[in-house]
């Protein structure tokens, strides 16, 4: 098992190399003179020249690439012009906010989509089946940023149920001591239920917005793969052996149906991380997405590149986790690894 995981880790290496090459190309593709950009609008000619040498832009591309990779490994992802902080530190600082939002959104989506897909597949033609189809078609058509605004309008402005859609905590609460960076967890560790409630309230609308978007592909895939599995021969065998419906449904059908769903999860993460940026902007969520947007608006490129790289590495990591989970569920994949 450990060996299989190590093999998969090795399998992720080409993806990481590809990602690094692309981000390198993107940093060098800056319109005009990158040095001029990094020098900022006020940079003098000497300053630009200095930066050019400092960035190694006077050297050959392979040399530049090697030093780029060296910088990345050493944790030097450049500095943010607007805040003056190292990009990596900024990203590390804001990553927990993004991750908390993403994971809660994913959790919500999974908790709704999978039972929905299973129910729709076990009762074809019923109202729940139609509901599932409706949700899956409508869900993928929702522009995340728009649903977020609508939710904020309805639940904050009209109904007043949700707090104002600004940030992770209401202005009167103080952030819990840093342990994991996830406010929900940290506040519980600190035993501060008030902060927990405040964090949860702030989190719920953006998380629902995210969940609404990724619900559709998940439910659709669950339904389709569950339908396929339920008509499989081995389900008939299980039924012919008189196994309890719950055993047939969970131990036999569901575990098998999970495999294609796990595969889709890769795509779902791609959507999730992308929509995350939009949701962070709508709800002024202090994660790496809004960090990148602020930098974009200020034409501050190092944070944007750092953001792209961080997201890509995160995505590679998530795909790796999916692979490992797949191996846990499917013995055939374990062998191939």
């Amino acid at each position, binding site marked *: 098992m450990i060996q299989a995981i190590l093999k998969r880790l090795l399998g992720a290496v080409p993806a990481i190399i590809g990602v690094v090459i692309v981000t390198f190309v993107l940093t060098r593709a800056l319109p005009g003179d990158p040095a001029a950009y990094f020098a900022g609008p006020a940079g003098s000619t000497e300053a630009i020249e200095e930066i050019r040498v400092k960035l190694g832009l006077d050297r050959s591309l392979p040399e530049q690439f090697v030093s780029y990779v060296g910088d990345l490994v050493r944790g030097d992802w450049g500095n943010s012009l607007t805040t003056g902080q190292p990009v990596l530190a900024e990203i590390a600082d804001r990553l927990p906010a993004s991750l908390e939002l993403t994971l809660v959104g994913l959790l919500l989506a999974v908790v709704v989509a999978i039972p929905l897909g299973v129910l729709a597949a076990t009762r074809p033609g019923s109202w729940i089946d139609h509901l599932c189809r409706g949700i899956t078609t409508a869900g993928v058509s929702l522009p995340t940023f728009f649903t977020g605004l609508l939710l904020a309008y309805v639940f904050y402005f009209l109904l007043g149920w949700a707090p104002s859609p600004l940030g992770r905590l209401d202005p009167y609460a103080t952030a819990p001591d840093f342990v994991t960076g996830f406010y929900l967890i940290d506040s519980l560790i600190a035993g501060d239920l008030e902060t927990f409630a405040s964090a949860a309230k702030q989190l719920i609308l953006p998380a629902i917005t995210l969940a609404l978007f990724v619900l559709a592909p998940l439910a659709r895939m669950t339904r389709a793969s569950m339908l396929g599995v339920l008509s499989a021969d081995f389900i008939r065998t299980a039924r012919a052996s008189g196994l309890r419906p719950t055993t047939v449904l969970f131990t036999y059908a569901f575990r098998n149906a999970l495999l294609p769903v796990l595969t889709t999860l890769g795509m779902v993460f791609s959507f999730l991380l*992308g929509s995350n940026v939009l949701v962070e902007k709508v709800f002024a969520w202090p994660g790496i997405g809004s960090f990148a947007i602020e930098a974009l608006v200020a034409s501050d490129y190092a944070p944007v590149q750092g953001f792209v790289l961080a997201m890509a590495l995160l995505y590679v990591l998530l795909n790796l986790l999916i692979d490992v989970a797949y191996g846990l569920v499917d013995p055939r994949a374990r062998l191939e690894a």
Partner: protein
Amino acid sequence: MSATPSAATTATPVAATQSGAVALWWRNLCYVFGENPLSAIAAGLFVFFILLAALGPWLVPYDPLASHVGDPLSPPSAAHWFGTDALGRDILSRVVIATRLDLGIAVAAVALSFVVGGLMGAFAGYFGGWFDRISTRVSDTIMAFPLFVLAMGIVAAMGNTVANIVLATAIINLPFYLRVARAEVRVRRDAGFVEAARLAGNGELRVLFHHLIPNILPPMMVQISLNMGWAILNAAGLSFIGLGVRPPEAEWGIMVAEGAQYIVSGEWWIALFPGLVLMLAVFCFNLLGDSLRDLIDPRRRT
């Protein structure tokens, strides 16, 4: 939406039974529309959007860029059906005018990735070898990124222009077309009719362009229609965060962004109408994509 390439479609040449195929197509069409009235609605919406895009400038009641055609921030009324924004511009006019830009970006991006990705995939599938390995690597590398994030990075690096939005959207769509084309060409590469064309003295390129590529068009069309909605969403998302299209230009994503700050103070119409229309357009393309897939590839009906 669906990223799965339909690898195993039957390898029958389109030319084989042209009239029979048309009849079958027609019957399928009736079936799809009969089965799912939503398809008919989607087709109607599609025509509606095409008309809006084509005739928009002649339809709009006000100049979409002119401020103070009405009082700023006035809610929907008889004079301004969708209300006015902070500058007193007519939202209805702006929403209608934006159709052309939004659909244009999506169509251009999808067309670009269709042509480039389709050709790369067809070559990779047909000839295999190093070209296949390289193009597969390229598409895998693109897919190693969360796609919207990659698009952000590309636009940020290449410059904040509409052309680069198109390019970025095309690049993140490329792998889907490449994979479908590659898989479809591979299953047909050694089919009887291809072999026959080769034996008849056709060169490899001729076989590829005259016999194989026409046959992979149907699954590629399905991919296009499934991708269109997503391409529109991506482009609008990029403008929402301030990339590409710049104000005062009318574009759905920007308009939603402009309306965002007013939502919390209750001026809902500024963001609502462009958002709704955007949603409707994406919904229409997604529905159409599903119907088209049912039509062309009935076995994948779910």
